[in-house]
């Protein structure tokens, strides 16, 4: 008998009967859940324990979507209402807000990079820091709670991308955040070529306008369930499981170029 065999005999759950999932209680739980549409908010199971559910939603884990990139969660809140405010078109922040967001992001990512872009989409703020040493992104919700006063957020830092050609982009790809219990978001950032004046992503039926400033770009969007399996496959076409949206760049002479984003991935 080896170690694993012996451990199995010490399973503290060995007395849980195999047929428990067919017990009246288990069946009632299933019936209660499926009485509502998936993703609906009127479930009795939901309303029975609102406080507990909100707390759970804060438990966000991160998934590293590209080698060499560190993606780490920041404490905070999450709610669908906040994500519902997401805007495909970014908005700027005031100088005072920019200073505060940049300071927080530098603290979370433990880098001293200066801010390059700070943009707002609904109640969420994206802060993009970069210097000769590297770059970092922080995505934070402005929705706060007593338990988590900083708001929900994700932060990632990575090596600096190379400078692209004048009519191209350079990025390390799309970062996917997901804890399985909170909303998944996709973050992307990088450098733009000297002639690039605008960057637009098309993904999941959305047209996401990136912020382009200081020779860099950044954008983010919430994941939406594709209408079909085909839609999901088209969004994840063999790029390390990360979304591969089409991106259209506009050049200073008015020309536009549309390609899959992975063609601008410096690691691809």
């Amino acid at each position: 008998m080896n170690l694993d065999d012996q451990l199995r005999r010490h399973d503290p759950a060995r007395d849980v009967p195999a047929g428990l999932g067919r017990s009246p209680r288990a069946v009632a739980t299933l019936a209660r859940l499926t009485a509502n549409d998936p993703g609906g908010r009127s479930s009795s199971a939901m309303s029975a324990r609102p406080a507990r559910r909100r707390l759970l939603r804060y438990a966000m884990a991160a998934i590293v979507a590209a080698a060499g990139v560190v993606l780490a969660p920041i404490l905070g809140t999450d709610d669908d209402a906040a994500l519902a405010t997401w805007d495909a078109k970014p908005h700027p922040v005031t100088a005072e807000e920019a200073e505060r967001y940049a300071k927080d992001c530098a603290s979370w990512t433990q880098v001293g990079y200066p801010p390059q872009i700070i943009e707002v989409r609904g109640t969420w703020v994206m802060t993009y820091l970069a210097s000769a040493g590297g770059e970092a992104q922080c995505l934070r919700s402005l929705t706060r709670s007593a338990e988590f006063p900083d708001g929900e957020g994700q932060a990632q830092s990575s090596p600096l991308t190379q400078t692209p050609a004048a009519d191209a982009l350079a990025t390390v790809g799309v970062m996917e955040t997901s804890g399985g219990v909170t909303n998944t978001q996709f973050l992307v950032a990088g450098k733009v070529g000297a002639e690039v004046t605008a960057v637009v992503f098309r993904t999941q039926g959305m047209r996401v306008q990136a912020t382009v400033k200081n020779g860099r770009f950044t954008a983010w969007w919430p994941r939406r369930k594709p209408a079909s399996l085909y839609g999901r496959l088209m969004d994840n076409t063999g790029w390390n499981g990360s979304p591969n949206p089409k991106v259209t760049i506009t050049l200073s002479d008015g020309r536009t170029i549309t390609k899959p984003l992975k063609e601008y991935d410096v690691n691809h």
Partner: protein
Amino acid sequence: MEVYASTYTDLVRFVVRRRPATDQAEDIVAEAFAVAWQRLGDLPGDPGEARAWLFGITRRLLMAQHRADHRGQALSVRIAGQVAVAGPTLEHDDLVATSVDLAKAWTRLTAMHQEALSLSVWEGLTGSQAAQVLGISAVAYRIRLSRARRLLKHHLAHPVGEPSADGRRMPASSEKGLA
């Protein structure tokens, strides 16, 4: 229904291994399923991956209920006491230990290493699935699991108070930071 029923039992067992109050396990599982239902769009298509995804939800729920910061934290996992087997029951790599020895050695592991072993031995997950539950890379999980096995064997070979092979005593807390 078949998938739900088997997964329901697996999740109850998952909770029972981590929480002494076993009578509340089904409450927690019901809540985990409620979360999963809300996030149905994220449900992996592969049954094994889906099971791991549900374990991940349940684990985070347990940690949130205990107000733990999930970053870098782990849930301690219980072990059943002496099993009804007489005499030495473990003979492996020149190691002979009794059921009591194993239970004592288990309690000297950190929660992090207990979790790593539990996900493999009791939850029966693959390395990548266990890594998904813990929110770490598959490589990091393999390292953690390997260290957990080594530490458990070390504790079996060197009960509390007995010097280790190099003459030093190894307190339980010395494992922290190994994985």
